[in-house]
């Protein structure tokens, strides 16, 4: 026990004297939390549309007006030539083309049926899909307007109508930043836990101080615990700093209890520290450790549901996410912060993380013993 005390004293002194670590602990949360949510806005707005009007009728103009006044679209071009519109799309000046054929008004009124043609720049799949579907819903609305004008609507409408009332819970303003912030907190904690920890241990290997410790009575488990505890604490510290920034800059206050979050974070850190330890047993230079940590973290973070939804992934990718500790923390963080979930709601997650922690740390310790 006393030995552990001395080890911890040394570790903490070394960590706080390392200027790079201090910078990382404070700058990273600030940078990521401030820039990332501002940049990461997946909402689709300001869609540039080119309208080709071959009809020049009352109806075509009214349709165009309806589109431009919807708030989703900006009319970037109003022309009579398809080629001109296509050119605009090529130059990225327009995202969508709407072509209103000649005789649009006549066909709609006299023949009861008219057609419209839409071409979408589908390179950005999301923007394309949403853009097309916004446009289609505007056209549907316009269609209803036209019908209303020409058909008397008795009390019992001949047209079957199912009205959809939608409401948004937990984030009524549909603020994307509120959604991103908890995820970023998870990334911060993960980086400290696995990245920094593995770098620290490998640096000792590179310099040779591990050898020195090996000849002393310090037992292996004491050494490992002496390394893990400071980074465990550091992980919680950076999360705290993150929450403070979230509160100050975005006004985000968790709906659930902090105790729940910290309890889970504590278990989670055990798991990612185990991962960091594992990485350190497979690398011998800081450069390798950095690259390997970075690579693994990138894969884990991409396949965790941070940027894209797990539900949409193919089956094999879903399996990978089940074996990824980050996935669970992201879920938990979002659940507790945004929806107020309780410990009971996340108890499965905690058990799974404990499993990870035991598995990763055991593997790492076995490796460590073998290679020393």
């Amino acid at each position: 026990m006393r030995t552990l005390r001395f080890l911890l004293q040394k570790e903490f002194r070394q960590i706080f004297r390392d200027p790079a670590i201090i910078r990382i602990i404070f700058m990273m949360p600030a940078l990521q939390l401030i820039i990332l949510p501002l940049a990461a806005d997946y909402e689709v707005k300001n869609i540039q549309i080119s309208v080709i009007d071959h009809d020049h009728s009352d109806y075509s103009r009214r349709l165009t007006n309806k589109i431009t006044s919807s708030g989703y679209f900006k009319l970037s071009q109003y022309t009579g030539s398809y080629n001109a519109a296509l050119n605009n799309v090529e130059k990225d000046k327009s995202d969508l083309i709407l072509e209103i054929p000649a005789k649009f008004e006549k066909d709609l009124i006299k023949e009861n049926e008219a057609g419209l043609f839409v071409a979408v720049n589908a390179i950005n799949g999301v923007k394309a899909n949403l853009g097309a579907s916004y446009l289609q819903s505007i056209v549907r609305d316009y269609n209803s307007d036209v019908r209303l004008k020409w058909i008397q609507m008795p009390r019992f409408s001949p047209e079957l109508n199912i009205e959809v009332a939608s409401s948004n819970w937990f984030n009524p303003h549909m603020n994307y930043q509120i959604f991103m912030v908890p995820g970023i907190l998870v990334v911060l904690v993960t980086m400290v836990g696995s990245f920094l920890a593995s770098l620290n241990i490998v640096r000792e290997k590179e310099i040779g101080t591990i050898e020195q410790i090996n000849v002393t009575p310090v037992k292996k488990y004491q050494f490992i615990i002496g390394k893990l505890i400071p980074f465990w604490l550091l992980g919680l510290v950076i999360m705290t700093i993150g929450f403070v920034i979230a509160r100050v800059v975005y006004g985000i206050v968790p709906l659930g209890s902090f105790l729940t979050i910290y309890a889970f974070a504590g278990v989670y850190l055990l798991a990612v520290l185990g991962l960091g330890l594992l990485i350190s047993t497979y690398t011998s230079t800081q450069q390798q450790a950095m690259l390997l940590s970075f690579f693994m973290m990138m894969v884990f973070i991409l396949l965790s549901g941070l940027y894209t939804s797990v539900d949409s992934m193919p089956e094999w990718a879903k399996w990978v996410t089940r074996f990824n500790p980050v996935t669970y923390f992201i879920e938990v963080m979002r659940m507790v912060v945004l929806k107020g979930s309780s410990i009971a709601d996340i108890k499965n997650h905690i058990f799974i993380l404990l499993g990870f922690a035991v598995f990763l740390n055991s593997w790492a310790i076995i490796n460590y013993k073998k290679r020393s």
Partner: protein
Amino acid sequence: MSNGTAISVDKLTKRFGDFTAVDNISFNVTKGEIFGFLGANGAGKTTAMRMLCGLSKPTSGTASVAGFDVYSQTEKIKKSIGYMSQKFSLYEDLTVKENIRFYAGIYGKPDGFIKEKTEKLLNELRLQSEAGKLVRSLPLGWKQKLAFSVAIFHEPQIVFLDEPTGGVDPVTRREFWNMIYKAAASGITVFVTTHYMDEAEYCNRVSIMVDGKIEALDSPTQLKKTFEANSMGDVFLKLARKAVRAAD
């Protein structure tokens, strides 16, 4: 094992796959002796020493250090020895005082002892004014002397020194060896490896390893007589040539 023996080695061997790094070596080191362990790079010195420190398991043979078996009692060995290597000994980003305190602490020395002896040590080395400075800022010679003192701070029975005086000027080396004498005089056995041949003269006995085997083991004086050499350097060259010849 008799009370006067600090290290006892019998037919100790270490193999890495097909390669035999340490080949059947046997020797004894008496308590309080300054035992020099010489050899070219790659002769097997470091491997042998690592086995004695409990860092690596022998392939065959027996050895006991401070009365403890190197196979089954490595923890006890580690408690009874000190170690210093040229590559590294002290934490550059901790202060002089913090380094002393750390190493003394992990060897289980009580706080009172640490405090008192630290004062004494700083006085002896004339490092009182540097006590609060980071080790990184000390010149190399001071670092080496401090490292040695830290290695014996917890009053171990044996201290292992692996090429401790590399890169240091002759005057500092002399001062370093004075410290070694003092330690030996106080009863600490000193096991030192070096490839400075003049330092070999300072030892009580010297063993010379060639290709994993001990080719010579005696006091410097005796060795010079046996090999008809004027200096330890010549003794070594003669033995090394033998190895080349054996390889033909």
